[in-house]
C-alpha cells in the first residue's frame, strides 16, 4: 500500500527539526518522511510539538535548525511568496476549525482556492458543487460556516483542501471538535478521496481511533519522533 521505509524518494522529508517558542522547546531533532499517496499519522500527547511540526512541514514557520525538503525544494529556505504558492497549489490544509471564511457560503469557501488561481467564478462554483456532493454536503451550498454542524463544516473544509488536487493534505486534529459519528464520516470521506486521487495525507491527532485510519504511525514525544510498529 505504501512505501514503508522503502528505497523510493520521499515526497516530503524533514530532518532533525529544532524549533523553540520562547523558552519552550517544541521540537528537538524531529525527522519524518512522507511518501507519495501515503496516509501517515503523527500522534503524541498534547504539547508534544505536533502542531509545530505541521507548521514547519507546511512552511508556515521556519525551523531554528534542520531541513524540510519537498520535491527537490528546501521549504525552510524558500521565500514566502513561493511558500504561499505551494500551500495554495500543492498542499491542502485542514485544521480543527477556523479555516473557512465565516462570511462566505459553503460553495464560495470551496471555490476560493480556484478563484485565487484565477479560475472564473461560475466555473469555480460548478467544480466546488461537485466536490461538495462528493463529501456528502450537497444541499448546503448556500449555508455559511456558522449555520452548519461541525461535521458538515469539516467536510466543506476537506473539499476546499482537496479541490486543487494537492499532492499532500495536512490535517491538524481535523476531528478534534466532533463527536464520534461525525468524526467517522469526516475521516472516511478524507481517506476515500485521498486513496482515489493518490493524495498523501499527514494526519495529526491525539486520538488512536483517528490514527488507525492511517497506513503508518509515528509518535512524537519530547519533540522527537519514533516510529510505531517496529517491535522494540
Amino acid at each position, binding site marked *: 500500500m505504501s512505501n514503508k521505509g522503502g528505497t523510493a524518494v520521499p515526497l516530503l522529508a524533514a530532518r532533525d527539526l529544532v524549533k523553540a*517558542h520562547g523558552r519552550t522547546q517544541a521540537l528537538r531533532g524531529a525527522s519524518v518522511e512522507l511518501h507519495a499517496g501515503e496516509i501517515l499519522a503523527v500522534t503524541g500527547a498534547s504539547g508534544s510539538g505536533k*502542531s509545530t511540526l505541521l*507548521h514547519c512541514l*507546511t512552511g*508556515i*514557520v521556519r525551523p531554528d535548525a534542520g531541513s524540510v525538503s519537498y520535491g527537490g525544494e528546501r521549504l525552510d529556505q524558500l521565500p514566502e511568496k513561493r511558500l*504561499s504558492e505551494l*500551500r*495554495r497549489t500543492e*498542499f*491542502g*490544509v*485542514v*485544521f*480543527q*476549525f*477556523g*479555516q473557512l*471564511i*465565516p*462570511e*462566505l*457560503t459553503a460553495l*464560495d469557501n470551496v471555490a*476560493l*482556492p480556484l*478563484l*485565487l488561481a484565477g479560475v*472564473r*467564478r461560475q466555473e469555480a462554483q460548478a467544480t466546488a458543487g461537485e466536490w461538495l456532493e462528493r463529501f456528502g454536503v450537497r444541499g448546503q451550498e448556500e449555508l*455559511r460556516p*456558522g449555520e452548519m454542524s461541525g461535521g458538515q463544516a469539516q467536510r466543506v473544509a476537506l473539499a*476546499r*483542501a482537496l479541490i486543487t488536487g494537492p499532492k499532500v493534505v495536512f490535517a491538524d486534529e481535523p476531528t478534534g471538535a466532533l463527536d464520534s459519528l461525525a468524526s467517522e464520516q469526516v475521516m472516511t470521506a478524507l481517506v476515500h478521496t485521498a486513496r482515489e486521487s493518490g493524495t498523501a495525507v499527514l494526519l495529526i491527532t491525539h486520538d488512536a481511533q483517528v490514527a488507525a485510519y492511517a497506513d503508518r504511525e509515528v509518535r512524537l514525544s519530547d519533540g522527537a519522533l519514533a516510529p510505531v510498529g517496529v517491535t522494540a
Partner: protein
Amino acid sequence: MSSAAGISVDVRLAWRLTRGSDRREWWRVGLTVAGAALATGFAQAAVVLASLDGHYAIGVAHGLLDNPGERHGVVFSLLLLLVPVLGFLGQTARIGAVHRDRRLAGLRLAGATPWQVRRIAALETGLACLLGSMLAAAVAVPILLSYWAGPSALAWAGMVAVALGVPMLGTAVGALALRRVVASPLGWVRRVRPAQRPGRVLLVATLLFTALALVTLLTPFTANPLFGFALVPLTVFALVLLVGSAAVWLSGWSSSLLGRVLADRAHSAAGLIAAERLRDDPWSAARTHAAVLLVTVVGTGFVGVRQVMLADLRGMRSVGQLGMDMEFYTTGLDLTAAAITVGLVIVLSALAVGTAESLASRRQGLAAQAAAGVPRAVLGRALLLESALPLAPAVLVAGTGGMAIGVWYASITTEYTTHNVPYAALLVPLAVYMCCLLAAATSLPLLRRSVRPAELRYV
C-alpha cells in the same frame, strides 16, 4: 455586604482585571484616556468662554474672543467638536470587546450578580475617563490662569463640573453599552454579532435637526450683518448634522446593497470576501462612516464658504466697508479650519481603530485562512475594499451636500462680489477619501501580525 464595601471590592476587581488583561485592553484604556482628555478640554474651554458676558480684551486670535457674538460661535464649534470625540470614545469601547465579554461572563459564572459585573466593567471605563479628565484639567487650569488672573466663580464651577461630569458620563455609557453582554454567565460571544441598524434615537435627532435647520433658514438674518455672521455657521452646522444622520442610513444601506450586488458578481477572491463581509454586517462601520461623511460635508461646505466669504470681505475692504481688521475675519476662518481638521483627525483615528479592532477580533480565523493558502495580499485587499467600497458613494453624496452649501452661500453673498462657484471645495471629498484609505491601511501591519502561526495555537 454594605454598598461602600461592595464598591471598594468592585474597584479592586476592576483594577486587577485591567492589570491582568492583554495588550489590546491597554490600548482601550489608553485611547479612552485620550478621548476623555479631549472631551474635557473642549468642554472646559466652551464652559469658560460661555461664562463670560459682555466685552473683554482677551488678546488672543486677533480679538475673536472679545465680543459675545463671536464667542458664541466659538463655543458652538467647541461643542460640535464633542460629537466626533464621543464617536471616537464609542469606537474605543469596542476594542477587545470579545475578550472583555468573555472575562465578564467568567465573573458571572464565579457568582457575581449582573449588576456587580456591570459596575465592574463601567468602573474600568470610568477610571480611565477620570484619568483623562484630570490630565486635561491639569493642562487647562494653568492656561486659564495665564489669561485670566481671577476667574469668576462661575468659570471655576463649570471647570469642576466638566472634570467630574466626563468620568461620570463615561461610567454611565459603559454600563449602558454592556446592558446586553453580561446577562448570562455563558453570554460570551463566539463570533462578533452583526451590528444593529440605528434605532429611534437617531430618527428623533434627525427630525430635530431638520426643524432647527428650517427655523434657521427662515430667520431673516441678512438685516444685521454681525448677527448674520454669527448665525451662518449655526445654519451650516445644523444642515451638516442633518446630512450626517442621514449619512448613517446611507452608509449602512449602501453597504448592504453593495455587498449584495457585488457578492454575486465578484470575480476576484478579495472582492468576494469584502462583498460578503459587507452583506453580512453592513451596519458595523456605519457610524464611523457617517462621521467621515459629516466631516466631508463640513469640510467641503467650509472651503466653499471660506472662498466666497474671503472674496466678499475683499470686496467690502475695497469699498471701505470692512468693520474690523481683515485679520479678525481670517483668524476666525483659520480657527474654524483648525477645528474641522481636529474633527477629521479624530474621525480618521476612529476609522483606523475600528478597522484594527475588526481585524483583531478575527485574527484566529485570519491566521487559519493564511495558513490554508489564502495569500496575505488577498486578505489585505479585502480589508481595504471593505472600507473603500461603501465609502465611495457616501463621500460622493457628502461632497455634493457640502458643495451645495458653498453654492448656496455664494448665491446669497452677491453684494460685494460677483457670483462664482467655489470649485476648490471639490478637492475636499477627494482628500478625505484618500485619508480614509490611508487610515484603513494603517491596519495592514496588524494584519501581518495577525496571520502569524502563533495565533493558530489558540484556534
